């Protein structure tokens, strides 16, 4: 049954529904929870014959869907792994990235936490478990509760590379399905610490910790002086074409990039 659904989806993706285009977009929660749905709504307003099927369950799921040919676009907050490129090549596919927005991974704390900033070294020590008590970084004594994304997340992988010298997360870290769940948990827990994309920092109960004196903002993210800056991507099979190209072009247009900025990301241009 699952196979039949996949085949049907693949047919729909490749041929399009009669008289209507459906774009299947899967992958990153960072992009797919807020930004891409808003872009899709704006796009549909101009292209009423296009419908969208968006699933935001982590960047890895976007690559898997592209390789299975059950999605037109794979949203990703990280670059494709060599294993994913190889898997695509084995099926005759060519994963091509398009940068659609810049993001900064923000370190968030409970708003009651007296700490205002951390060093990069302290961030690494906290998330790897080398430091387990807030008193070690100048805070009130108390066990640190770590909230991270789950392993399907591109942010999970990016943060390991950008902030943790590729070391493993602390065994005590609690893995959340999305940015909003991390925000929710940290807002509830005075000892909590987590990381989220820039678009998710405007929430009550949390605050953003400066890293080496820098908080994520547009100019620091764009010129990469904020340490946890990263591009976010649409991945397609080869150069975008048809409705896929039209939506990618819309995302990169002035109108699309304005939405990017409104949601909280940093525009490409």
């Amino acid at each position: 049954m699952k196979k039949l659904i996949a085949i049907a989806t693949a047919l729909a993706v490749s041929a399009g529904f009669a008289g209507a285009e459906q774009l299947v977009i899967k992958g990153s929660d960072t992009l797919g929870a807020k930004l891409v749905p808003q872009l899709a709504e704006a796009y549909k307003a101009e292209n009423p014959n296009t419908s969208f099927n968006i699933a935001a369950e982590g960047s890895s799921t976007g690559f898997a869907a592209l390789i299975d040919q059950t999605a037109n676009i794979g949203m990703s907050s990280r670059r494709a792994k060599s294993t994913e490129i190889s898997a695509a090549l084995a099926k005759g596919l060519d994963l091509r990235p398009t940068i659609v927005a810049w993001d900064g991974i923000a370190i968030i704390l409970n708003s009651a936490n007296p700490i205002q900033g951390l060093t990069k070294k302290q961030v690494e020590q906290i998330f790897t478990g080398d430091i387990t008590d807030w008193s070690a970084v100048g805070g009130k004594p108390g066990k640190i509760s770590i909230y991270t994304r789950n392993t399907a997340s591109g942010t999970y992988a990016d943060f390991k590379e950008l902030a943790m010298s590729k070391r493993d997360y602390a065994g005590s870290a609690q893995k959340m399905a999305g940015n909003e769940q991390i925000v929710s948990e940290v807002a509830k827990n005075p000892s909590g610490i987590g990381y989220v994309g820039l678009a998710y920092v405007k929430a009550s109960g949390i605050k953003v910790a400066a890293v080496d004196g820098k908080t994520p903002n547009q100019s620091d993210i764009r010129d990469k002086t904020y340490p946890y800056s990263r591009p976010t991507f649409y991945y397609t099979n080869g150069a975008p074409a048809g409705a896929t190209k039209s939506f990618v072009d819309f995302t990169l247009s002035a109108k699309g990039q304005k939405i990017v900025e409104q949601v909280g990301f940093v525009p490409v241009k």
Partner: protein
Amino acid sequence: MTKISITLRALAAALLLGGGAVAHAQDSGALLDALVRKKVLTSQEAEDVRADLVRENATSNAGKLQLSNSITSLKLYGDVRLRYQNDTKDPQVAVVTGVDQRSRERIRLRLNGDFTLAGGFFGGVQLQTIQNADSGNQTMGDSGTGAAGFSNYNIYISRAYFGWGNDWLTLVGGKQPNPFYTTDLIWDADINPEGFVEKVDLIKAFSALTTNDSTLQSESRFELSLVAGQFVFCDNNEYNPSNLGNTDAWLFNTQLIASAKLTDKVKLTVAPGYMTYTSGNVTNSVTGGAAGKFNETAFYGKDATRNLSIVTAPGDVSFTLCGLKAKVLWDLGYNTAGAKRAEAIYGLNGRTTSAHSHQDDLAWLAGVQFGENKKAGDWSVLANFRQTGLTAVDPNLNDSDFALGQLNMQGIKVGAAYNFTDFCVGAVTYYDAWNLRSDLFGGQTTANQKIANANAVQILQVDLNVKF
């Protein structure tokens, strides 16, 4: 193809060539980032180059080996040796279990992985054929070990260790290469003892502790190191009241290694040391050489490691002769508890049996060596003479090739080796040994202890060894 596209692909090709076939996009990430910062490329163009690089890598068979992030270097290597061996033994007592004459075709495989980690940590692993501690030789088609009829062979862990070190201190734990300066008079070269080792470069340590700079003495003409090893020879169940020897058998070995450059081409090394065992019951079978053939009290049981307190004194003078490296070497072992061991283990009480002699407690070796085997065309020869008294050394550790590891023997070892290529060495070695004392209890040699039950032993080995 557009001009920018051509430029990008040219850049990608340049990056690939610059990094070799193993180039990954992430390897070139810093360069791409710099090009973006300089506005040579846009972020999207850099991303296209990255994607090209990853795709190129994905379609190549190079650079696919993934290593742990903690590894700073890894060396994989090994060797396969083919050997023809002919043993001829003239036993005193005809009931000896074993062979009086035998020719064998043998194979030995060793696979090594040595790694270094950040922060001064290091380690290594070795796998090899045959469980014997003192030999990795698998006799081809050996019906005695069930290898007849083209059977496959087992592989064993012969090294597994890690350690930490700085300029003057090295600590190692596990089954490891022999850390001592020695010859095969005392230690068979195949044995990898297991336990703990501490090495201190005393000159560098003194320098580091007094000046905080251990590199000051690096050009010294003198070297002085202390090596201490604590090795687990046999682990026993201390809580088993029915076990008479319910303590572990540990070997403690300490050595001071001193060397001095007498001239630019002459170096003297001496390494006095001391080794002794805690008393312990060797309840597990000891494998290897003579020990594997004779499960008797010298190797197996509550007296196996009793009364072995051996003073050792190996050394050499190395120099250059006619453009070749040369060495005069020696070794000496003297068991200070030899008289007790002679009576307890070998039954020499001087009343009802033969008397113990101080000659039994002494082992010594003297020899010369010319040449070395490093690259194609290199050759070397060696010759030495030795005497090994009945109680002088631990028969579990001494060379299993000379006289098949038997004690109360004396004789010569001569050999020659030639490098056919950098990695392929042919060698011929001949051992001729005959008994040291001929008046021991039970005849010319000791009938009760088969380890000393030989009048003469000749061994010929012809080797072809390929390293990789």
